[in-house]
């Protein structure tokens, strides 16, 4: 080229790293993702499901025992009316935030790197919401009357109490679940059609065919599909913010010191994204090891970006923690001050649950700070370990909020400690069984990666595609 021509080359430091490594072709993507579903079931899968499904079953048995005997088989008491039940609920519902955030918010903001992880993240969301939904349902004293929560017109003209945040919760979570299912399913349609077309057995062809709803990949179909997907993304985006805001209202609208905090909605949303991404990484990192062919689609770039989000949201959460302490001091309210400085931080040795608070502080605020270093963000082992810290930390955050506020509130006479019962612990463990079993089934029978979307971001799909200089 002549020297006088203006070079349009992007400077190397601004070159976007490719979203699919090794210059893979469109066919390669189809082949490798479908292969996971189509090849013979690997031994590790059988082994895994043989572990997770009995755990799920155990959880189920605990739930049946609890329902038949009463909430008393758990450790809740007066004054701790809630403890592990709602902790687990908020923990799981928080995890369920990452999927929708990745698929909806990142879609609207044109973050194309989302494509290789959105399917699995969304599936994870759904399964987490399933696990989350168990707890509010079974934690009530009389499960068989849980339908009182539904606004069913009746002759007594008794309605649910629309002032109660718990009722808002019911609406928020069920809306979130239904929209998420719809969104996830709509995204699946083209890929189900791919699997249908590739299926060798009649049964598989029929089942995938039903799921694919007659998808032929025509131009009009794509047009409608993309419009629907966009609309659903638009619908889901406010839900990402609303669900956890409303969950936080359960606490924020109450009058308990430690709950009655206006900072809760943004703090809870940030915390949910924080915890959700940690769980995505917890699942995706081992998956990309088990299926090496996915390594070209789930790259270090993805891990790096997710680690950055964890760092950001973790810092927001940390700011919220510190702001709570500041407000507790600044308000001059002795009950608030007691809850934060004594019951939680335990500065004077009279608190009971300081270990929970400091585990939360370390895991959620300190441990993600390592992601300021790029090398750490790109180190799978470090990222995996920090993700585990975050998972633990986020559980303890909810435990701290719920139990420390209840155990030591206004009148010292009513203070009481809480410790979980075996049934309660096993029920929580059981939900992990349910979660993992569902995820294993998902991995086995549905495309883990959105084939059609990843194809759209391969170098080959770029209309301005040219091979970069080697």
């Amino acid at each position, binding site marked *: 080229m002549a020297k006088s021509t203006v070079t349009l080359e992007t400077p190397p430091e601004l070159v976007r790293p490719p979203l699919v490594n090794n210059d893979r072709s469109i066919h390669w993507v189809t082949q490798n993702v479908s292969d996971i579903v189509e090849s013979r079931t690997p031994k590790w899968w059988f082994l895994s499901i043989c572990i997770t499904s009995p755990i799920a079953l155990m959880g189920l048995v605990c739930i049946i*025992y609890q329902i*038949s*005997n*009463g*909430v*008393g*088989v758990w*450790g*809740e*008491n*007066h*004054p*701790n*009316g*809630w403890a592990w039940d709602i902790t687990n609920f908020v923990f799981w519902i928080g995890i369920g935030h990452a999927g929708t955030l990745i698929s909806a918010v990142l879609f609207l903001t044109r973050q194309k790197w989302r494509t290789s992880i959105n399917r699995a993240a969304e599936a994870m969301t759904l399964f987490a919401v399933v696990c989350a939904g168990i707890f509010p349902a079974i*934690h*009530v*004293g*009389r499960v068989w*009357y*849980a339908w*009182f*929560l539904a606004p069913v017109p009746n002759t007594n003209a*008794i*309605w*649910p*109490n629309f*002032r*109660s*945040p*718990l*009722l808002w919760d*019911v609406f928020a979570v069920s809306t979130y679940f239904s929209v998420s299912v719809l969104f996830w399913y709509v995204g699946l349609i083209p890929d189900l059609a791919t699997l249908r077309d590739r299926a060798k057995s009649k049964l598989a062809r029929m089942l995938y065919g039903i799921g694919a709803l007659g998808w032929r990949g025509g131009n009009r179909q794509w047009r409608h599909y993309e419009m629907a997907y966009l609309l659903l993304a638009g619908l889901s985006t406010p839900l990402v913010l609303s669900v956890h805001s409303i969950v936080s209202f*359960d606490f924020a*609208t*109450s*009058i*308990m010191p430690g709950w009655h905090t206006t900072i809760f909605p943004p703090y809870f949303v940030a915390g949910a994204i924080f915890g959700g991404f940690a769980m995505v990484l917890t699942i995706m990192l081992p998956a990309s090891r088990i299926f090496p062919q996915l390594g070209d689609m789930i790259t270090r770039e993805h891990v790096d970006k997710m680690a950055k989000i964890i760092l950001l949201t973790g810092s927001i959460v940390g700011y919220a923690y510190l702001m709570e302490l500041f407000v507790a001091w600044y308000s*001059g*309210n*002795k*009950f608030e001050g*007691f809850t934060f400085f004594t019951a939680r931080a335990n500065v004077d040795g*009279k608190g009971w649950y300081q270990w929970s608070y400091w585990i939360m502080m370390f895991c959620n605020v300190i441990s993600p700070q390592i992601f300021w270093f790029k090398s750490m963000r790109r180190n799978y082992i470090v990222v995996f370990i920090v993700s585990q810290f975050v998972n633990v930390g986020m559980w303890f955050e909810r435990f701290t909020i719920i139990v420390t506020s*209840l155990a*030591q*509130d*206004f*009148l*010292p*006479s*009513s*203070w*009481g*400690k809480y410790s979980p019962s075996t049934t309660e612990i096993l029920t929580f463990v059981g939900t992990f069984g349910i979660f993992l079993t569902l995820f294993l089934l998902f991995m086995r029978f549905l495309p883990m990666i959105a084939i059609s979307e990843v194809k759209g971001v391969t170098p080959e799909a770029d209309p301005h595609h040219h091979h970069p200089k080697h």
Partner: protein
Amino acid sequence: MSKRIFQHPAEAQTGKRYWRSLGQLKDTPEFRGWLQREFPQGASELDSSDVSRRGFLQYMGASVALAGLSLASCRRPLKNLVPFTKAVEWSVPGKALFFTSMMPGRNGGMPLVVTTFDGRPTKIEGNPNHPVNKGATDVWAQSSVLDLYDPQRSRDVLLDGKKSDFASFEKELEAILKAAGDGAGLAFLSDGIVSPTRDRLRREVLKKFPKAKWAAYDPNGNPLERAAAEAAFGAGHEVVPRLDRADIVLTVDRDILGVEGDIASVRGFAARRKVDGPKARMNRLYVVENRYTLTGGMSDHRLRLAASRSGAFLKALAKEVAKLSGEQSLGALAGELKASEFKFKDRWVEECAADLWANKGKALVLTGSKQPAAVQALAIAINSALGALGKTLEVRKSNAMPSDSIESLAVELRKGKTAALFILGGNPVFNAPADLRWAEAQAAVKTVVHLSIEKNETSAKAQWHVPAAHYLEQWDDSFASDGSYVVGQPVILPLYMGINANELLARVAGVDAEPLGLVQKTFSDAAGGKLEPASWAKTLKAGYSAGSQAKPLAVGLSAETLSKLVSEAAPVRLPDGEFELVFIADSKVDDGRYANNGWLQELPDPVTKLTWDNAALVSPATAKKLGVETGDVVRITAGDKSVEIAALILPGHADDSVSVALGYGRSEVGSVGKGVGVDVFGLVTSSEGRFRVGVKLAKTGKRHALAVTQEHGALEGRGADITRQATVAEWQEHSEDKDFFKKMGIDAHAPPNFSLYTHPKLDDVHAWGMTVDLNSCIGCAACMTACQAENNIPIVGKEQVLNGREMHWMRTDRYFASEQGAEDEPEMVSQPMMCQQCENAPCETVCPVNATVHSEDGLNVMAYNRCIGTRYCANNCPFKVRRFNFFDYNQRSITELYRWNLISEKGTPETIQMQKNPNVTVRMRGVMEKCTFCVQRIQEAKIAAKVHAKDSGVQPRVPADAFTSACAQVCPTDAIVFGDIRNPESRVSKLKEEQRGYRLLEYLNTENRVWYLARIRNPNPKMPDASRAGAASRDAHGHPAGHGASNGGHA
């Protein structure tokens, strides 16, 4: 099926005779036969051989219904059990009927009014007509109705532990009496209950068997007080404290407001604690005790002192009083004090004595049942010097007939010459002093007959066990604590064929054993020989004989016998480095007699808050010395015996002293009391009395879980928010400041409340509210038991209490507070806590299903049917007064809660069902519940008002104070007042306007309907510890409570 024959009651002898038919009037055989036929109309049909299919099914259905529903299935009818074929006008199904009755006890009979529904007693109230009770009762009276229905009560006559029957017993009794001759081989051991009928029958028995022995034993009685009184005033005299007349009271090791007092004392004391303004005069209470008691909790000055040093304290006091009064004899009586005896602060004694002396004639010194007779005599001498006799300390003729002691009876029995021993109630095998080895002594008797309401340790060691009637089942009489004659009227036929002591004695004496006749004879004897039906009816209606109160006597002190008693007594000394062991009468199970009562077992001890256990109470310093924490098992060794029992650290306990409640660790008892606590009667000796010195304590390394309902007793600097108080001086200083008590703690700084939300108007003609006077509440917890009985509150068992799941709708919070550096001398405050019925209730907004809502008359109501049990309401309650049914406590045994619901047994024993208040829902599992302000009583009153108003056009309105809640009704100090705050005539609307009135956590804007009236302390400014009074309501920095008092500047 044999037909039951009903013995119809004889017609009343007075008044007009009403007759149903000419047949009845003539009393023809045909009419009698007609009466015998239960179902006259259909009977012939059943008798004929060809019963129609339809008819057969009808009869079958009816019999099934009767078998399941009627009471007939749980007892055999004795007599006069006639179903109403036609309703009588005074019995309306679902409407309560009230009968006067009486509960016998060691302090005399407690006059009662018993609520019955359809023939079953459900609730007990004090007799409002009686001048002592005025409607109040105590925890034992409240829970006695549960004893009546205890399904494990003794049901059968037992011979050597095997089921027998009354006929065989009667045969045996006849044989014994025939062989008894002059009665030299007969002995009786009574439980010490005073009943004129029993005494009359006792005299009859002794007339027939002049050589028979009669002893009485009550483990928690106070024979030494009687000994001291008799030494001072001559045989047959007793002393009665009049706290209502005393300005200055000093108690030395006497829980006069708790287990060593009665309602008369409590009421008398509380009367002097009612203050309507800063100028009101109130009494002052000095307390010297080894452990915190309810009395100590009410004290203005408290000195913790080992029980064994009480004698020395009284000697020092006597010396001071002698110095002030110039009475040489009193000084001489006190004798020389050795320096080693002097373990208390000089100034405390000096100033206390000076205060007592300055209030001569209005001062009172009391000492308790644990102290030797000499110490009690010394207290009488001091009272005499203080001019108390006839004023604050009355002398009167004792109603109790003198009896032998159990010690002398044991000696007698060991001689082996006793053919028959009748034990009338009581449980000496369990609770006689260990050195008597009573079981052995009893074994030397040929035939032991034990009359008891339960099968206990003594029944197991007796040949014959005869089931006793509960006091609600049989006629009895007694004297109330003011000496007035009270009649115990049965309100239900004996459930298990029990007989009472009067019947048994009558059989022994060979007189007609008809229980009503026995009591009526005593009544008529007292009235001059002839039964006046009108006066009998009047007595029954009133519940007591008006004007029969005991008259105080003006008896002079016989100084000689008194000083002989004092000087001959060997002084008790507690050497340094040794422990003393104090046996305390339990506030719940008494001497073990109530061990099978679940309400009492689950009732938290008013001071320790311990349920389902007894414990070794030690001071924090002693615990540190021993290296034990609450729950560590310690071994107490006294003499050659030892017991292992869990320690419980009690602030304010005397060092080097350990207190243990008696009455636990029963072995032969129903399932409720089994395995509860540790039996320490084994360490009690008859010679050393109720405390022993030279006891060793050692840590064992074992742990025992103690179910304490209040884990946290410190106020955490929240005294000014929760339990507000001031001293008399502080109050007088702020007498003009209306907000003095309202602006304390956080409320002193909080901006005014406002609401963004428009609340529905509470515009009913009524507005229910409550006041709780912390100045007169002693924390006795009678309200808790009354609430439990009234509102069908289940018990949950020790395991669940450990888990924090007790169901009491109201609790009495007990706090200890002290100034920094004075942690050894804490102050105690009791505070009854129930639903505050917030107008702006945090629980209501959060319930997702509208199960808790507000009524127009201001109640925060619960719709159990609607509740799904999210527990959100309980979480959002700032007072944590909501109670959740974690299990089906009403349907399942408390030992089987964790068994799979499908395989564990369900259902409530039929008798327990009979106790339930039919106007209150029995809640199922998974449902939230809480104090309702006794909404059933409110509704009943409103309906009555409506019926009264009828069509008059007047808006029905319940008259002021026409009824009250269960807790307010039972309260012996009138601390709780309930009523209509919209009615300016009502007591509550006046009380809540008092300067002392405040509401809890006002800054939350919950608009509570319960007002607390701040506590006033009345310290003697000259006392060394005067500045400490009121510590509980100062904040952590030691600032005085009142906002204006210290930080008025920066408001």
